[in-house]
């Protein structure tokens, strides 16, 4: 006999903690911004960083959901794509045509990486061998970037004018606002794709229960490649936005640090939740930026370790993250 246990809704006991934390965070940022224009500016530029972390974090989540593997090469692929964008622009293409063409190239590149480097390993191996393969791709791609374009810093133009936008005595840079807008838009487009299209539904089914999806006639292995393509395209958005931000320079190791923040964002969101990665990325971006500017002993070198500490705390205290589902199933 098989016992049928009632489903326990995951959020029954700690259900109020997550909304309360988020509300506290939002209130803190809003009240602070109303009190002080410096605070408001730092919040917005922190959110711009957060958008970059969020889009790379969502890319990580996409692949993690489908394969239970953290793709360590996600940042390097984003860097590679950004160099392609830079190359296209330096050949004379306009920013937005180059942006869109880069998305297509990154999409195809992501599919190729899955086919060539990941699938052969995955077919025979366990999760660990796929992780190692992804680290291999990271090293290879970063090396290729240095070999093709050299290691010196390049200048990536921005899509947004170097102007400021004034609201009630606070100056927001168009760069920050544009970065927030584009990264959020990219994630929303992807969300709509998964939520509302037939292909998106098939991809979700393939990620949730591969065997049942195959029994419905879904070509799961093809959809996995497609998932890598989408993740790479989203990563490319993150890379192009990052390279144009004043605190990051276009160089082969550009995304290494950002990948850590993106990990932290994904872990904070629960690793399986794209929405969680977005909220996590924005929160980490805003809070770290405020810490950097208001807490005197927090130097820029401390911000990366801070992200690590945050990740550790989440993994120790609530491994399912803010938005993670505790896996429930009938037995």
């Amino acid at each position, binding site marked *: *006999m*098989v*016992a*049928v246990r009632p*489903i326990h809704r995951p959020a029954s006991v700690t259900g109020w903690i997550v909304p309360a934390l988020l509300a506290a965070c939002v209130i803190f940022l809003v009240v602070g911004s109303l009190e002080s224009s410096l605070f408001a500016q730092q919040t917005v530029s922190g959110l711009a960083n957060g958008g970059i972390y969020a889009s790379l974090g969502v890319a990580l989540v996409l692949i993690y959901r489908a394969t239970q593997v953290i793709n360590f090469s996600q940042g390097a692929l984003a860097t590679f794509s950004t160099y392609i964008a830079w190359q296209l622009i330096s050949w004379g293409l306009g920013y937005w045509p180059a942006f869109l063409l880069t998305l297509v190239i990154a999409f195809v590149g992501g599919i190729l990486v899955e086919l060539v480097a990941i699938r052969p390993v995955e077919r025979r191996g366990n999760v660990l061998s796929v992780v190692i393969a992804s680290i291999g791709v990271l090293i290879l791609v970063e090396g290729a970037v240095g070999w093709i374009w050299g290691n010196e810093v390049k200048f990536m133009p921005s899509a947004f004018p170097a102007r400021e936008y004034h609201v009630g005595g606070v100056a927001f840079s168009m760069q920050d606002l544009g970065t927030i807008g584009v990264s959020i838009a990219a994630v929303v487009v992807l969300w709509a794709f998964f939520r509302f299209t*037939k292909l998106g*539904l*098939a991809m*979700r*089914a393939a990620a*949730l*229960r591969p*065997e*049942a*999806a*195959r*029994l*419905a*006639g*879904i*070509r*799961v292995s093809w959809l996995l490649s497609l998932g890598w393509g989408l993740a790479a395209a989203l990563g490319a958005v993150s890379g192009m936005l990052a390279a144009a931000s004043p605190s990051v320079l276009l160089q082969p190791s550009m995304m290494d640090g950002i990948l850590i923040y993106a990990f932290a964002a994904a872990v904070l969101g629960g690793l399986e939740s794209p929405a969680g990665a977005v909220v996590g990325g924005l929160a980490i971006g805003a809070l770290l930026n405020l810490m950097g500017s208001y807490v005197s002993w927090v130097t820029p070198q401390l911000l990366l370790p801070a992200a690590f500490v945050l990740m550790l705390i989440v993994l120790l205290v609530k491994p399912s993250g803010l938005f993670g*589902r505790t896996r*429930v*199933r*009938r037995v």
Partner: protein
Amino acid sequence: MPPLLALEDVQARYGQVRALHGVTLEVGEGEIVALLGANGAGKTTTLRAVSGTVKRDGRIAFAGTSLGRRGPEDVARLGIAHVPEGRGTFSELTVWENLRLGAITRRGSLDADVAHVFAVFPWLESRRAQQAGTLSGGEQQMLALARALMQRPRLLMVDEPSLGLAPLVVAEIFRILKELNAEEGTTILLVEQNARNSLDAANRAYVLEVGRVALGGTSDELSRHDAIRRSYLGY
């Protein structure tokens, strides 16, 4: 007329462990055929061999096409719907999304299929937006059947539909299977622990023992067979 599904000397293995040692059986168009047998006799594996979710050798022909080395997605596209043991529902998705997935490989309007499925399972319509994981066990089993029907299968393979369900729910599921077969001519290959229910629903049955067909016949013949009565029907 050749049978809809014919297995000839089919063998299957999980890693090094052989689960089927040469199964030969047929399912004719419009029949309900049951597979009986003890735990580990190879009933589930036989279904998995057909749908391609286990490595198999031997000849499997469906409607004149060899299933050969085809994977599950190709077998499904040929018109075989497999409702696996333990309910093939996507518990994280909504009822509607589950139904949609049944017809995911088809283009065009689903209105007729949806109307059909809602006619068979009227309660589904008001639960369209509900997350499938929050349905009761019996409802999930019916949703799995409904999703299979959305595939418009020529052959429906159902594995242990009664697993862990209350007798009333089981009776309802068997009533629906019989109705589908009688009114729409859906061919059904059924695996079921409860031999009485199976023989009651099926036209014919095969008894599997350690990966081979030990006995086959019409349900009436098997119900009267002494060994079957003792081993499976318990009187």
